[in-house]
């Protein structure tokens, strides 16, 4: 379940008393309710499911996890190999 994808807030507005946002996903745009991420600002990335933003994406966590992954031994071995080969 739970098809939720990350998108960037490009505008905020209010509708029927609820905070809403226009969200961009690689050029396609959708609207989502920000009631559960009220502090999210234009430029932030949020996870959107069925028209609701459920969480802001944590840039630091994302970066940390990608760095951690890049340290996987086989990747480091492959990088070392290509460095010594070139």
């Amino acid at each position, binding site marked *: 379940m739970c098809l939720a994808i990350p998108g960037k807030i490009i505008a905020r507005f209010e509708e029927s008393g609820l905070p809403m946002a226009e969200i961009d996903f690689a050029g396609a745009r959708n609207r989502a309710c920000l009631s559960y991420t009220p502090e999210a600002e234009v430029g932030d990335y949020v996870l959107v499911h069925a028209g609701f933003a459920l969480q802001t*994406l944590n840039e630091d966590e994302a970066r940390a996890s990608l760095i951690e992954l890049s340290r996987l031994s086989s990747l480091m071995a492959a990088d070392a190999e290509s460095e010594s080969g070139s």
Partner: protein
Amino acid sequence: MKYLTEYRDPRLARALLDEIAATVTRPWTIMEICGGQTHAIMRHGLDQLLPDAITLVHGPGCPVCVTPLETIDRALAIATRPEVIFTSYGDMLRVPGSADDLLRVKSRGGDVRMVYSPLEAIRLARENSDREVVFLAVGFETTAPGNAMALKQAVDTGLTNYSQLSSQVLVPAAMAAILAAPDNRVQGFLAAGHVCTVMGIREYLPLAERFGVPIVPTGFEPVDILRGILQTVRMLERGEHGVVNQYGRAVRDDGNSAARAVMHDVYAVCDRKWRGLGMIPRSGLDVREELAAFDAGKKFRVTDIVPAEPEVCIAGQILRGLKKPPECPAFGTDCTPMHPLGATMVSSEGACAAYHSYARKGLS
């Protein structure tokens, strides 16, 4: 696409697969809870790429699949009524009840409308004050906050022509039921990442403790799923149990308390029957007693529901990870996505449907 493309990087996926292969020393059975994770695994062929020692079994994380037949029949009966505008997520439109489905009701003149956001149904209720708008609220904890906000809007603005038919389910109780079963084979779990964005990770700690298993909140892209599997395998190899978050960019320990607060305002935890699994105590969400005016199950008295499940269906065993779809005698013959016999074939997220679409006929 930021936060997506990086987690589909074949290089990173390959490195994770190598690391998993280097870590595993004996067979392990791991369950991914969420239908979306099943779908991703099948779509990217991850199960083919993992070492044979790892068996992935697919859990009951498909709210469409586990919606009881009675609920669908009830929904169909309500949708047929001339005064009703029946609204639903796209996922539920083709799900067959005992003898019918929502799209067929629509073709016969029923006012059935697909919505992407539950707020759309609120808008319809405001614009059509002479009609009764009913929303089929299915979903796990990921979808419940949105469903809840819609209901809260109806309550706060005093809408009298809006109600929800709730078929919402909660993950932890189902996991406990699976783990407690005497024939359980699951040794570790990939917890549903998007459920955890709402609920946080804390409610899984007692489960991990009680049953001595690793539970790893995991995302949905190939790199996320492989990260989750690697973490689970590492813990299994070391004999460790507990909850370790591998979807940190979206899951906070505490989840989203604002979402849970609204869920609590309008819904109450209840016992829920899961199609294929039977009754699981405290595993569902119902509209609160005091909000009965917004509960379509109470607003529309529907009787004469006698659901009829085909006997040959082994969905229950599949949802508990005891069998795989190809082991079912009806798989691909009497039971296909075109004419599904049971829970796990009815939705594209269901294990049987995913197998049939992506992996049937024994590709080498």
